[in-house]
């Protein structure tokens, strides 16, 4: 479904990701693991057209090179951004509704999203800025789902959430994973959580892919070493 080949992402003169290559199939979840500044967010931004990139990104065989973020969104790339990025002055319902801005149709509607996150139905009329961090995260994921994406990019969904709240969000994602045919890329700092929620993983260090493999039976210690760049440099 999504194929990335020789992808580099840069902001002006600064290159954040070097020569990444991987594929994500429909219904599959890929975990991006790495420390702060490893290039995870830049990689997602390069895929959805929010930063400049070299290399090939194809969605269902169609090259997305040079397309604007708006065009890619129409093709079915949706992002739940780091820091949740609510539309602070809009209500919860408006935040969700505008997610359908691209006009893509499919199983995700206001009612199916509020079924996944019931609390959002309850707080539909509240300004999004008054929600807790966990609820805002649900809005951010729901907003991305409203676009009925083929590829769902989830950036740091558990960052800054209390463990029990993070658990709740991850449970919803697990449900999503089994029920939908969306290709998902999940950025997550907690290695154990990332492995549990994915089919395959990819570990980034200073902008380069240093380790990748199947999540099932993955060696957490090896990932930990790759994460910090110990012993894998060779």
């Amino acid at each position, binding site marked *: 479904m999504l194929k990335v080949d020789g992808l580099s992402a840069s902001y002006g003169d600064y290159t954040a990701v070097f020569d990444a290559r991987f594929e994500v199939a429909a219904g599959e979840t890929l975990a991006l693991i790495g420390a702060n500044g490893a290039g995870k967010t830049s990689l997602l931004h390069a895929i959805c057209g929010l930063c400049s990139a070299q290399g090939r990104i194809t969605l269902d065989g169609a090259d997305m090179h040079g397309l604007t973020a708006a065009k890619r969104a129409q093709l079915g790339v949706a992002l739940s951004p780091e820091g949740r990025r609510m539309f602070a002055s*809009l209500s919860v319902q408006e935040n969700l509704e505008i997610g359908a801005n691209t006009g893509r149709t499919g199983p995700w509607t206001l009612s199916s999203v509020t079924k996944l996150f019931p609390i959002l139905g309850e707080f539909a009329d509240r300004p999004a800025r008054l929600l807790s961090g966990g609820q805002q995260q649900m809005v951010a994921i729901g907003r991305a789902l409203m676009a009925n994406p083929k590829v769902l990019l989830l950036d740091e969904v558990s960052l800054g959430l209390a463990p029990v709240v993070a658990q709740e969000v991850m449970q919803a994602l697990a449900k999503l994973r089994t029920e939908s045919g969306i290709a998902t890329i999940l950025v997550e700092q907690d290695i154990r959580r990332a492995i549990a929620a994915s089919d395959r993983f990819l570990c980034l260090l200073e902008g380069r892919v240093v380790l990748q493999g199947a999540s099932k039976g993955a060696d957490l210690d090896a990932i930990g070493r790759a994460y910090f760049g110990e012993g894998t440099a060779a």
Partner: protein
Amino acid sequence: MMRILLALATAALIALPFFADRGTMFLAMEILVIIALAQAWNLPAGYGGLLSLGHHGFIGLGGYALYVLSRDLGLHVLVAIPAAGIVTGLLALAITPVLFRLRAVYFAVGMWVVAEIIRILVMRSDWLGGASGMPLAGARDIPRAWMLPTAYWLALATALGATVLVWGLMRSDFGLRLKALRDDEIAARSIGVAPNRVRLTVFVLSAAMTGMAGAVSYFSALFITPLGAFDIGWVVIIVFVTIIGGMGRLSGPFLGAALYFILREGLADFGNWYLIALGTSAVLAMLVLPGGLASLGDRFNFSKTKEQS
């Protein structure tokens, strides 16, 4: 109930020329023009986060467009005034390829520079009467006794039209996209909002409304000069009225205009003291009431935040 009150207020405003004296009419017209200008400025600035300090350029363009359309094409003033708005919108569209490369405060100042450039070009143009300006050729299109009422009704129509347009836009999907873009551009782009298309639309609409309000204002003046039409003082009033009233709120321009004219008329006997009062109230509002007068309701009533947009 609300609707009946609005309808009654509108009817009273329409009937005003039949019982008010000339002084009241002039003041009412000025208030309506300021409301229209503030609504037009609020659309990109308050709802879209696109601040301009050069809207006086559009006021002047609208005014001059009316005078030129009336003199050179012989258009009837009632046709030329809306046409002046359209001309201003098209000229605004023409400068966007350069201006939209600028962001935030650079855009605000860039607009100011554009307005200055237009003023200087107009002052050097003999065709436009140079620095001494020109009279309105179409002044005889309307019988003399009907001039002031006509100008007043045009101002009323412009103010109400601008308000209804902003109201309608903000209830549409387009309004949602505009506000999303203001709140968080990255998130908005990631869900497929095309930033420049949305900004361009509100900018051109705003310029057209501003141009039409400028044309109405200079229709009643019967004479236009570059120093008056391209005076930065216009923008100072518009920004004051909108910020004090409430950025990004439909009622903001009305409340801000009310405060502005109460201060100005109330302190008319004390010379320029009203300027000091305006400055003080602007600083106070920013410190105590950053959402403007329109946000006063929110403080006492939580559910009101729904109305905020």
